[in-house]
C-alpha cells in the first residue's frame, strides 16, 4: 500500500495524497482548507480493506499527516504562543516543511532508483569475491652497507665474561662443624669461637655458628659472651649448665636456633 498514492476526495482537493502535500508545500493550497480528518478517515478505510496491517504504510502516513496537521495548526493560530518545543511557530512550521520536502525528495530519489533498476535489468556482469592480490614486495629505502657492517660488527663482538662468582657459594654441612666442635671439646676444656673460625669464609663462619647452636640445643655445651661483640666462649655443658638454666636463657637459645 502506497501512502502517496492514497486517493483523496476532499472539498478543497481531489487526487493522490502526495500531490496534496506538494501543493501545500508549494503554497498553492492553503493548509487551512485541507480537511485533515477526512484524509485520516480515507487512510483508515483503505487500511481496513486489507487483511494485513501494513506497518510501513502506517508509519509513513503518521509522519506525513502529523506534519500536515501541525502546518495547519500553525497557520490557523499564527499569533498564539503555543508552547511546542523551543522553536517559535514560524520556525517550527519551516522546519516541518523542510522535513516534508526532504522526505518527498527522498521518495522521488527512490522512485528514480526503481526506474533505473528497471532500465538496467538487462545489464549482466561478473560478480564474485575479490580475487586475492599477490602480496606486494616490501620496498626498502636505499641502504648504506657501512651501517649494516657496523651493526653486524657490534653483534659479532665477543661478549664480556659473565662473573660466575656467586655460583661458587657453597654451604658446608652443619654436621662437619658439629663433629669438629665435639672433637675440640674432648681435647680442650674451653675454646674461643672467634679464634676457631677466624680463617674461614663468612658462609663457613655462619654454618659453624649454627653448629654451635645445634650443640647447645642438645645440651652438649655452654656458650658464654660477656657483652655484645665480645669473644664467644665455649665450654662443655657439664660445668655450670645448671646455673644457666636457672637464668632462663636456655629456652631463648633453643628457639632461636
Amino acid at each position, binding site marked *: 500500500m*502506497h501512502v502517496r498514492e492514497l486517493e483523496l476526495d476532499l472539498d478543497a482537493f481531489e487526487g493522490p495524497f502526495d*500531490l496534496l502535500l*506538494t501543493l501545500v508545500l508549494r503554497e498553492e493550497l492553503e493548509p487551512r482548507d485541507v480537511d485533515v480528518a477526512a484524509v485520516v478517515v480515507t487512510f483508515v478505510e483503505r487500511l481496513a480493506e486489507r487483511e494485513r496491517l501494513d506497518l510501513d504504510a502506517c508509519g509513513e502516513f503518521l509522519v506525513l499527516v502529523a506534519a500536515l496537521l501541525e502546518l495547519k495548526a500553525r497557520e490557523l493560530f499564527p499569533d498564539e504562543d503555543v508552547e511546542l518545543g523551543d522553536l517559535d511557530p514560524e520556525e517550527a512550521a519551516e522546519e516541518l516543511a523542510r522535513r516534508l520536502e526532504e522526505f518527498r525528495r527522498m521518495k522521488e530519489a527512490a522512485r528514480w532508483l526503481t526506474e533505473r533498476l528497471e532500465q538496467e535489468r*538487462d545489464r*549482466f556482469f561478473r560478480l564474485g569475491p575479490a580475487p586475492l592480490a599477490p602480496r606486494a614486495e616490501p620496498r626498502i629505502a636505499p641502504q648504506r652497507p657501512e651501517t649494516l657492517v657496523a651493526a653486524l660488527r657490534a653483534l659479532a663482538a665477543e661478549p664480556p665474561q659473565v662473573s660466575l662468582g656467586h655460583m661458587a657459594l657453597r654451604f658446608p654441612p652443619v654436621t662437619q662443624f658439629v663433629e669438629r666442635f665435639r672433637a675440640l671439646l674432648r681435647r680442650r676444656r674451653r675454646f674461643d669461637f672467634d679464634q676457631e673460625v677466624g680463617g674461614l669464609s663468612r658462609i663457613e663462619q655462619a654454618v659453624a655458628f649454627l653448629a654451635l647452636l645445634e650443640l647447645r640445643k642438645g645440651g652438649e655445651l655452654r656458650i658464654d659472651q660477656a657483652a655484645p661483640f665480645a669473644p664467644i666462649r665455649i665450654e662443655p655443658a657439664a660445668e655450670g649448665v645448671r646455673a644457666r638454666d636457672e637464668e632462663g636463657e636456655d629456652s631463648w637459645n633453643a628457639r632461636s636456633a
Partner: protein
Amino acid sequence: MERTLRLISTHPLDDLARTLEALLVVASQPLSAEEMADAAGDDAERVEDALGLLEERYTEGRSGIVLEQVAGGWAFRASREEAEACARLFERPVERGLSGAALETLAVVAYLGPCTRPDIARIRGVAADSVVAGLVERGLVAESGRDEGGAVRYRTTPLFERVFGLESLSALPRLDDLGETTDDIRDRLEAIAARRPA
C-alpha cells in the same frame, strides 16, 4: 603469412590493449586506470588511450562483451542484446525482491551517506534497522566509521553503483531536480479534473 598478420595489428597501443583485456577479464570488480597501469607496468596516460581503443572495440552491437566505466573504474559486462540468454543461465540476485522501503533507504544512504540508522529513520519516519541490515547483507550498503555519538555510519558500496549502472555517486540526479515542476503539478491537476464527471 607473417606479413599479413602484422597488417592486422598495426596500432601502437595494441600490445598494451591486449594486456588490459587480460586484466579486465580476470577482474571480478571494476579496475581503475591506475590499477591497470600498475599491473601492466605502463604509464597511466597510455592506459587511458588503450582503454579508449578497447571501448570502441567492445561496444553494444559490435561485441557480446561491452567495456563500460562504472563504479569508479572499468569493467566488462554482457551486451544488453545478450541479456535474454544470460537471464536463462544466471539471475541478478542482488536486486531481487528489493522492497520499496529498501529502495527508499538506499536513496537516503546514497544521497546523504555516510549516515546513521537514526538519520535514516528521521527522514523516513520509520525505524530503519532491519532494512539497513538487509541492504548490508546484499552488499549494497556497508559500514563506514562512526559518528561522534558512536552510531555506525553507512554508505553505498561500489556494487550499488554497478547494479544501478552508475559511473559514480555523482551520476545520481541532483535532489533539487527530482521534485516536480509547477507545470508537472498543473498537468496532473488537469488530468484529475478531466477524470472528474462534470
